[in-house]
């Protein structure tokens, strides 16, 4: 790949080969065979860059310098959490453990193994994965009140997670998606001694609703125990 010299580029810029023989012209340029689109071609890129070879206006540089002087606001540490709903409760898991979200699909129950918590096997991306009934695992009480959704359309989804120790899937009533929570603003989860409390790392306020952040490792561990014996 030849990199044209600055002068060559400058010449070509005047030539506007992309408009003449490129994708915006008659598409007869030989480079198209390699780059497919003028946007990928170094000549095009070079032409673009050549724009920057003109003098910078003083007022512009002054504005930039002024902006640079401001001390940076310390960035708050945040966590990217994947928010979903089980029954009336909004829960979250660190986004990095989420692998995929898909529509609910049929479970294959495993005889003598499928119980309240272990739901069975499910096909995700061609592989059989373990599926669990999360509300049962967390011992969530039955829905007493109507859930308040966050979206206009509510689609129950199957969420597939993979942590360091375990990969597992579980069904949800609604999925919101990933959102960033500032760790500093995390509230302690209500410690009422319930199973849910045990698995919660904390609680965020999201759209005026409390969202519990679950501990993914604890969850994975608990899930793994289910399948052991």
């Amino acid at each position, binding site marked *: 790949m030849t990199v044209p010299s600055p002068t060559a580029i400058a010449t070509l*810029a*005047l030539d*506007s080969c*992309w*408009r003449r023989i490129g994708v915006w012209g008659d598409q007869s340029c030989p480079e198209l065979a390699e780059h497919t689109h003028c*946007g990928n071609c170094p000549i*095009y*890129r070079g*032409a*673009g*860059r*050549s*724009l*920057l070879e*003109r003098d*910078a*206006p003083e007022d*512009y540089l002054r504005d930039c310098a002024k902006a640079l002087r401001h001390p940076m606001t310390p960035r708050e540490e945040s966590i990217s959490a994947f928010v979903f709903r089980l029954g009336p409760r909004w829960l979250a898991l660190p986004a990095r453990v989420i692998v995929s979200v898909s529509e609910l699909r049929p479970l294959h129950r495993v005889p003598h193994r499928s119980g309240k918590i272990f739901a069975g096997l499910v096909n995700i991306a061609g592989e059989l994965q373990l599926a669990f009934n999360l509300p049962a695992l967390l011992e969530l009480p039955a829905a007493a009140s109507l859930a308040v959704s966050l979206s206009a359309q509510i689609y129950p989804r199957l969420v597939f997670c993979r942590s360091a120790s375990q990969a597992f899937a579980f069904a949800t009533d609604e999925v919101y998606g990933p959102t960033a929570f500032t760790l500093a603003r995390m509230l302690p989860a209500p410690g009422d001694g319930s199973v849910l409390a045990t698995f919660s790392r904390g609680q965020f306020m999201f759209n005026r609703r409390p969202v519990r952040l679950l501990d993914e490792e604890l969850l994975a561990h608990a899930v793994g125990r289910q399948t052991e014996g």
Partner: protein
Amino acid sequence: MKLLLRHKVTGLALISALTPVLALLLLLVWQERDIRSVVEGQFQERVRGELGAELRGLYGMLETANGLLQSKVDSSLNVAHEQLDRAGALSFGPETASWDAVNQNTLESQRLTVPQMKLGGRWLGQNTDFVTPSPVVDQVKQLMGGTCTIFQRINDAGDMLRVATNVEKLDGKRATGTFLPATSPVVQAVLAGQTFRGPAYVVNAWYVSAYEPLRDAAGRVVGMLYVGVKQEADTTLREAIAKTKVGQTGYVWVALGKNANNLSPFIMHGGGAPTAGLTLNAVKDANDGQPVFPPLIDEAIKTPGEVKFATRVWRDPKDPAGDSTYYNKEVAALYYPPWDWVIGLTAYDVDSHAVRDQLSREFSQLRLVVAAGALGILIAIGFVSAFLGGMIARPITLATGVARQIADGDLTADIIGHGDDETGLLLAANRDMVTSLNRLLGQVKRSSIQLISTADEISAGAKVQETTVQDFGASTTQIAAAVQQISATAQELVATMAGVSDLAQNAAALAETGGRQLDGMKGSMHNLEASTASISQKLSTISDKARAITGVVTTITKVADQTNLLSLNAAIEAEKAGEYGLGFGVVAREIRRLADQTAVSVLDIEHMVREMQAAVSAGVLEMEKFSGEVRSGAGEVGSLGGRISAILEQVRSLLPRFGQVKDGISAQSQGAKQINAAMVNLTGGAQRTADSLREFDRAVAHLHAAVEALRQEIARFKVSEDRSTGLTRIIFPSQKGPR
């Protein structure tokens, strides 16, 4: 026979007189018919009025009689009721009675057995003789004098048997044992629970009656109670009716209405009926043979209380030959329902005959008078018109005679006027005519003499002229030759001038066209100048726009710079983030691409703007150049136009001068031609004069001859002037002498 004027006049007068008379006669005849019918109508009306009044009087009488009888019936009924009450309750005993019941209509008898009818427990019996008293009925007769019957219902149909009655049969016995069949309207009414009131024919007389139902304790109709009072207890009523007088020959009659039998409904007719032997029913109309009375009676029945009239023709049927007079008769009828009587009156128009005859006589007299009068007038007019005709005809005859005289040649006739009317005017006109003719002829005579002398004089003069003319001819020939020469020279000059003039015209025309075209061109040049100015303006506008774009470009350049910077820093961060920054790196790459695209777009825009500006500059330059050329071109055109105009002016000024010269030469030429022509004329004229003089001689000779002929003609007329002027009269033998 020739119709002279006087005959015509007379005829006219007579016809004029005759026509109105005839018209009057016709009118009379026609009017007579009208008057007759009116009179007839009047007569009929009066007769009918009288008949109607009379009938109504009779009607009133009947009403009164009926009223009395009705009240009597009511009283009888009350008495009967009282007697019944007193007798006791009505019952039907277990015992029966056998009867030979006789149907009173058919007179058929049948045997039957019915329970005994009892009053107060006492059987009413089967009493037929008047010696034995019957309960109730005899008491009624005693007290009121009318008839009374108690009926018993003998079967379910409702036949009513007389079980106790005081009605006397023709054989002197009571009418007990007869029965009214259920079909009788009387029984029908009673069975329906109503009281029947009306006329009833009992045995042999009409009664005003009332039939009441008798009921048992249950309310069923078990019998009837009858009371009746004779309509005519005596003949007083009939006599009163019969006394009705209907003119001289009329009569009164009474017939039954619905209850009449077919033979004859008449129950009475008053005296004076011309056909005492015939039943009135058979009376027929003498004209059309239709029965007179039945239709009228039917009509009257249909309209009770309303008088109905019929007008019929009658002739004494006993008259064998049929020569007897036809009479009109007026019949009036009026129906009295309570007694079912139709009372009527018949009246004959005998009385009116006298009046009619009188009327006819009067008409005939009138006709005679008119005819006689007409004849008298006719004769009188005949004489008068004959006289007047003569008066008119005479002057005309006279005038005709005078005209004849004049035609023959005698103008000495004396015409005496006859007054101021048309004939007088005619004669006066004739007189004037004669006078004028006299004068005219006198004139002609004088002129003819003069004419001859003048002709001689002219003849002499003409001879002198002839010689002069011949001298004249020679000199004119000489002049003509000279003139020819002048003319020829002038022609040549004119031709030359014409040629020059034409050339000048052409030049002027060309110059004019050229000038117009130049003007056009100048105009276009100006337009062009204006257009170029506007184009220049537009170019400068474009230039301004291009500059504006450049300003925007600067802003976009800054954005491109920032974006590029962002993409660099993003890539750096992504690299630092390692595997975690993969996604971020993708974004960074995209941003970089975006920056490149933005930058390239800026370059493109700048390129285009530059080109545009270059084009504009080039355009502006071109426009300037072009504009300059246009201006100079316009200037040149202008100056050229000016030069052409000058030429045009000069040429134009030349033309009239040419014209003048040409005209002058032309005039000369013309003048020469004219002289020539005049000379020719003169020569010709001289020649002609000579010819005409010779002709003249001939003409004079003719004149002589003609005058002589005229004198001969005139001499024929005897003119009164001859006597007065004393001129010698030349008497020529004439065909006709004066009258």
